[in-house]
């Protein structure tokens, strides 16, 4: 783990403070928007573990996000609340098993083929839920009641309450960030960094590279599943779109936009992506053109690639006077 530059640290701290205080001032619309963004940030951080730190570019990460959401929706009774205390572990465990199964197969390939096989598995799940009756087909499933955190009669947090849910997601986002930092600083994380830098050398040193990659893939899958679980809780609804390649693409975009291999880059990317999208579709500024936000968004992405090769996080570091890193060309 590289230390965070001071200026970035300050910025992140201010951002976190703003997020913590926001519900006291913001409207419900923006509270929900920020909740959605923070869920995407968890999702993007989980992807960063394999893409940014291990060098495994997955274009099928939505498989885990969507699968966890579907497991929650399918295990919840139709009109009754279900306890978070068993559904969350169950969803994460199921997603973990799926990640082991997919990972054991896809990690046999590498490079561009890895991108395509991860995509293939995500697409299989997409069509499984889209074309069959298993999960309500293309209409998806409604989740009529949010999972409850009650222990007996004691019920401190109501996930149906927008503000409560906001703080739960905020806390989990911070928790995932520190968890991943811990993991990456551990010997396990150092081996992953080694695999990214030079896989054959790590193998020559006697490490079981495959097992390390699988470990990273499964952890990323489980954390992606956590994001999917939270997303299903927020919208009370799952449909096959959360499994689609478009979704995997968007989260990858967030990661690249923010800057890979930094964790907080994933968070910045999630915020930047969704907020820019909201900004371009804001009618008061763009009037009639607001409906054409995709055009502005597409141009924005193209410009970022051409002008900011290291993502937005790098821009932040450069503002802080740190010389730009060597571009990671390959």
């Amino acid at each position: 783990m590289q230390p965070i530059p001071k200026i970035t640290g300050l910025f992140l701290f201010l951002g976190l403070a703003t997020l913590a205080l926001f519900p006291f001032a913001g409207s419900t619309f923006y509270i929900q928007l920020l909740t959605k963004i923070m869920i995407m940030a968890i999702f993007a951080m989980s992807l960063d573990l394999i893409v940014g730190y291990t060098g495994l570019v997955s274009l099928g990460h939505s498989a885990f996000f969507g699968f966890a959401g579907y497991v929650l929706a399918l295990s919840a009774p139709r009109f009754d609340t279900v306890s978070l205390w068993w559904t969350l572990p169950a969803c994460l465990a199921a997603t973990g098993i799926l990640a082991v199964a997919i990972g054991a197969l896809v990690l046999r390939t590498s490079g561009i083929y890895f991108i395509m096989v991860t995509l293939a598995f995500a697409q299989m799940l997409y069509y499984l839920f889209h074309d069959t009756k298993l999960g309500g087909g293309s209409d998806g499933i409604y989740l009529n009641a949010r999972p409850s955190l009650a222990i007996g009669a004691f019920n401190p947090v109501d996930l149906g309450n927008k503000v409560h849910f906001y703080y739960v997601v905020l806390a989990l986002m911070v928790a995932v960030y520190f968890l991943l930092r811990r993991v990456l600083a551990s010997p396990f994380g150092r081996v992953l960094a080694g695999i990214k830098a030079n896989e054959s050398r790590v193998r020559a040193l006697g490490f079981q590279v495959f097992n390390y990659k699988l470990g990273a893939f499964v952890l990323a899958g489980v954390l992606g599943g956590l994001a999917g679980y939270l997303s299903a809780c927020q919208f009370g609804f799952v449909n096959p779109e959360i499994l689609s390649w478009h979704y995997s693409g968007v989260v990858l975009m967030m990661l690249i936009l923010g800057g890979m291999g930094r964790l907080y880059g994933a968070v910045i990317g999630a915020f930047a992506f969704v907020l820019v999208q909201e900004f371009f579709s804001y009618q008061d500024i763009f009037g009639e053109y607001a409906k054409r936000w995709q055009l502005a968004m597409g141009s924005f992405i193209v410009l970022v690639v051409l002008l900011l090769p290291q993502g937005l996080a790098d821009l932040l570091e450069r503002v802080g006077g740190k010389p730009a890193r060597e571009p990671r060309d390959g």
Partner: protein
Amino acid sequence: MEYLIQVLNGIQYGLLLFLLASGLTLIFGIMGVINLAHGAFYMVGAYLAYWLAKMTGSLWLALPLGVVIALAIGVLLESALIRRLYQRDHLYQVLLTFGLILIFEELRSILFGNDVHGVPIPPALNFSIPLTETLSYPVYRLFISGVCLVIAAALYFVIQKTRIGMMVRAGNSNREMAQVLGVNIPLIYTLVFAFGVALAAFAGMIAAPVSSVFPGMGNQILIICFVVVVIGGIGSIHGAMIAALLIGIADTLGKVLLPEYSGVAVYLLMAAILIWRPQGLFQAT
């Protein structure tokens, strides 16, 4: 007899996929660029066919005009944007071409709206060959297959037998060495990209009367094309041909035999092949 029709449909779909996948695999294999916008070019072609056929009154005039426009779009994009990506990581290619998809989709929406449009089949080909008393096969679909086969043969000839094809192959196997030996690699790359765009757009144009013209049509076909490219082996034209036919037939028959699982079938096939042969069926030549 019903299966004959399905197999013919599968072959026709497969050949169409080949037109798209051959451009994709060339851009992939020779230039090392992952072009997510390839499906968008297919859509551009279909809308060009719709617009030009309406303006000129004939698909036969629309086809050459459309190809010229597509070539121009290709040259423009390559020299303005794609050129800057050759030395960059695949991820940035994915990001930039994803941005291009958004731009093309929105331009399409601004210029043509979000309705589904039809393109009339040219009168000369608008009839069916009777197979039995109740079943018949539309000639236009046979025409698509025929055109695709001709293009495939021409592509093979150009790449294997001509001087320009030799330069392309040289650039494919070793960019620096070819450049040192006097091959104008930047020009070759521009040509390959523009040619790939034109192939995709042409596929969209001839498919338009059968598939109709609708928003998002490019995204739908893009992923299948990547599947074809990867199964066939990146950069391999004949691999793309075989994989395209395999996928075309598997998908069409899957829809008839197991309608609920046909979507899964294609990707299952891909996963199985890649786990069996991680480099695809054919190594690039």
